[in-house]
Every structure is written in structure tokens, then in C-alpha cells.
């Protein structure tokens, strides 16, 4: 089993963003069912945390701006770790994210196993 980062990116800036606040509201149940499904397979590494959308961005020369990362259309909207055999299985799980249909993107990254 490997650990994978599931990072959900979505537009947190634009007024006409998709998913919209209403769509996010209606996604609460499917989102929880998705997490519940991953957890029921014992593939959740730790209880997911909820992240605020406030954020700060730190750049060269200690320049700090208010986040989220405004120069990209898509900011980080949520992230958690799962267990999966390989990319194929992790991607299969990621496809269950109910925000995809509204234009959110799920980034899947495998943690490099520690050197034996």
C-alpha cells in the first residue's frame, strides 16, 4: 500500500466561480458519502481536516499577501491522504469526488516510500 495525496483545487476567487456556493452546499452530502466510502474501505490515512478559505501567500523577500493563491484560477480547496495500491486505484477513488462535475480538479500525488 502507498500513500497518496488527494488535493482538490477549485476557484475560490471569482464571483461566478464553479462550483458556486449553492453547488458546494448541495455537495455536502455526496462529499461526506465519498469520504465515508473511502473510510469504510480503511483507505483513509487520518481524519480529514476542514480548511478555511482565508489563507496567506508568502513569497520571496518575505512578501506576505492575503490568500488564497490569487494568481491561479484554482486554489487549494481541500486535501487529505489516502492509502491505495497504485495510481490506478488512487485515481479510481479520486473520480468519486462530487465536485468534479462542477469544474473542480483533483490532483493525485503518491508519497515516495521511505528508502528501505
Amino acid at each position, binding site marked *: 500500500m502507498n500513500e497518496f495525496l488527494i488535493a482538490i483545487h477549485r476557484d475560490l476567487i471569482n464571483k461566478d466561480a464553479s462550483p458556486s456556493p449553492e453547488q458546494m452546499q448541495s455537495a455536502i*452530502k455526496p462529499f*461526506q458519502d465519498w*469520504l*465515508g466510502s473511502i*473510510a*469504510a*474501505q480503511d483507505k483513509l490515512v487520518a*481524519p*480529514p481536516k476542514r480548511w478555511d478559505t482565508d489563507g496567506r501567500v508568502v513569497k520571496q523577500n518575505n512578501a506576505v499577501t492575503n490568500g488564497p493563491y490569487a494568481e491561479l484560477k484554482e486554489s487549494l480547496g481541500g486535501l487529505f491522504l489516502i492509502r491505495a495500491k497504485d495510481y490506478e486505484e488512487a485515481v479510481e477513488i479520486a473520480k468519486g469526488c462530487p465536485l468534479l462535475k462542477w469544474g473542480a480538479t483533483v490532483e493525485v500525488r503518491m508519497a515516495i516510500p521511505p528508502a528501505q
Partner: protein
Amino acid sequence: MEQQELIPNLFRTEYRKIVSVLCYLFGMDHIETAEDIVSDTFLAATESWSVNGNPENPTAWLYTVAKNKTKNYLKRNTLFEQKLSKEIQLNTSSTEEIEIDLSVKNINDSQLAMIFAVCESSISTESQIALALNLLCGFGIQEIADAFLTNKEVIYKRLNRAKEKLRKEKLKIQQPTLSQIEDRLPTVLTTLYLLFSEGYYSVSHDTVLRKNLCFEAMRLTILLIDNEKTNLPDVNALHALMCFHSSRFEARVNENGESVLYHQQNEMLWDQKLIDDGIHYLNQASTGNNVTKYHLEAGIAFWHTKKEDTVEKWESILQLYNQLLQLEYSPIAALNRTFALSKANGKKEAIEEAEKLQLVDNHFYYSLLGNLYTDIDNHKALSQFELALELATTAADKKTISNAIQKLQDLL
């Protein structure tokens, strides 16, 4: 009350109190001395009461005799006195004046200190439960053996090893400080939870014994709630959970001692008083920001006290299981979540989700699949129940699965 019942009843309620108070006074390394004194006291009661009749106030009689026996013991046993921890001598100038305080407050304090001492030690959880039953619930070795479905020798050895370890660790028995409570309360609650589960899910057919285990776990939880320092949200949540579960005690076993599945239970047999208590403690638990697994399980148990199948009921149960599993995985929670999913989102989605669980050595897994396939593909359902039957070990489980198979065969 006849003496035949009186002494065993007093033994059950008073033995543990006096032992706790004496251990609190002497320290855990003199646990055997405390037990000997209390056993002697009950022996004296049996002898005296059969000759002189029952005293007017049997409990007061026991307390007086226990106090005197302790004082005599201390006087006779100078060696013990020298070895006795300095703390006792700090509080009292001589053994003559040793105050053996059997007031309600000191009994409660002593028992609370004892719970924390038993749960703090490095002994195995199994031994902690046996020790809690013995020292805190006044269970005899035979009763503990019956509860664990094993023989007296095993329990005798288990208890002695545990007590030996307590002595060696020179564990202090004292009022836990606030920071100790924070550190150790999770372990204490786990032990109480397991003690309750031992009674609730035990394979033992002795329903009286099983109920006693559950009620003892509830009594000890109340002891924590009665103490200001340990009256915390998670303790109240655990107690609510126990109330909701035990409200179904009468309904979950039929007159032949066979278990009755939830959806077949007669809700007239559910204990409304315990349900109301559960709601009260769940409200008490709803302070602070911390949602523990006891909160979630109590919430699930609360919805199960409503017999009627509503969308709200199963959606709530599903979401509580979703949260519970994110907090802590267990196969049984995964299976129950999938059952709730079938009720909330339909069988088609639940079958897909169930196939992902792959709990192939768990008979409940195949029973769940059998249940989900029933009315969708009865041949498939039958084969799933047959797999469940192969894996089931207890007579009660086999009976439940056989009943399901019989029903399906009648349909086919």
C-alpha cells in the same frame, strides 16, 4: 430480606466500596490485605447473623466491623505498620486514631481513584476489565469466568498476575489531577466501554450476568459523571450510548434465549425510561467542540430508538457512520455504514460499496451482501448467506443466517 439473599447482595454492593476505601488508605501495594480484611468482615457477618439474626442496619454493621478489623490488623501487625506508607502516618498520629472514612464522599473518591489506578497500569485490557469487575464491581471469580466464557483457574491467574503487577508498579492510588484526567480519561472510558460491550455483545447465554455487566459499566460511568472534575462531554456521551443500547435489552432476546434482530424487535419492550435518560445525557454531552466516537455512536444509537423507517433517520445514521469511520475505522462500522447507505441511498449504490469492502473472512460481510441482494437477485443472495453460514462460529449467528436462508428458499 432473607439472609440468603442479604449477604450476597451486600457483598455485591459493599465489598467493592470497603476495598476501595482501604486501598485508598493503604496504597495499591497492599491490595491483598484490604481484600482479606473485607472478606473476613463478610465471614464474620455470615457467622454472627445466622446466630443473632440480621442487624437493624446491616451496612453500618459491616462498616463498623471492617473498621475494627482494620484497626486490629494495624495494631497486631507492627511490621505492616512500619512498612505502611508515610502518607498514612502523616495524616494520623497513631494507629489508634486512624480514621477509616466510610462516608459516601470518601467511598466515591476512593472508587474514582481506583478506576484511574486500574486503567493507568500497564496490564492488558483484558486484565483491566477482569480487575475492574473484581475490585470495582464486586464480581467473584466464577462470575468473571462465566462472563469471559473461561474457567476459574484462568481468571484466578489473570487477576493474580494483574494484582502482582499493580503491587510491583507501586502505583499510587490517589485523586487524579486535572491533567491526569485529561491524559487518562480516554483509557478509563475505553475500559468502561469494553466492560459494557462484554455484557452487551457477550456470547454467554446468561442474560442476567450480561445485564449485570452492562449495569456495572453504567454505574461506574455515573460515578465519573457525579464527580465535578470528570463530568465531561465524552463521559456523558458514553453514558448516553449505554442507556440507548440497554433500552433494548428486553427486546433483543426471545423467550427461548435466541437473539432477535433489530428490525424484528417489539418496540413495546424497549425501555422508555432508559431512552429518556440517554437523551438527557446526550444533551449534557453536547457542550464544547470536541466530537468523540462516543458522541457519534450515541447519535447512531439514538436514531435506532426510533423504530419507524424515515428518510431523516437513515440519512442521519449514514452521516454519523461517515463521520465515525473518518475518525476511527472498524470492520463492523464499515458494514453498518453500508447497511445505512442502502436505506438512505438505495440498494444499488450499497451493493457497489459493499463489494469494495472485501471483508472476506467476516460472516457479517456475507450476511450484509445476502441482505442487499435479497429481492434484487435472490439466487445471488442465497449464495452469499451460504458463505456467511460457513464462516459463522456461534450457534446464535448460525441460527440467524439459517433463518434467512430458509426464507429465501421459500421465495425461490
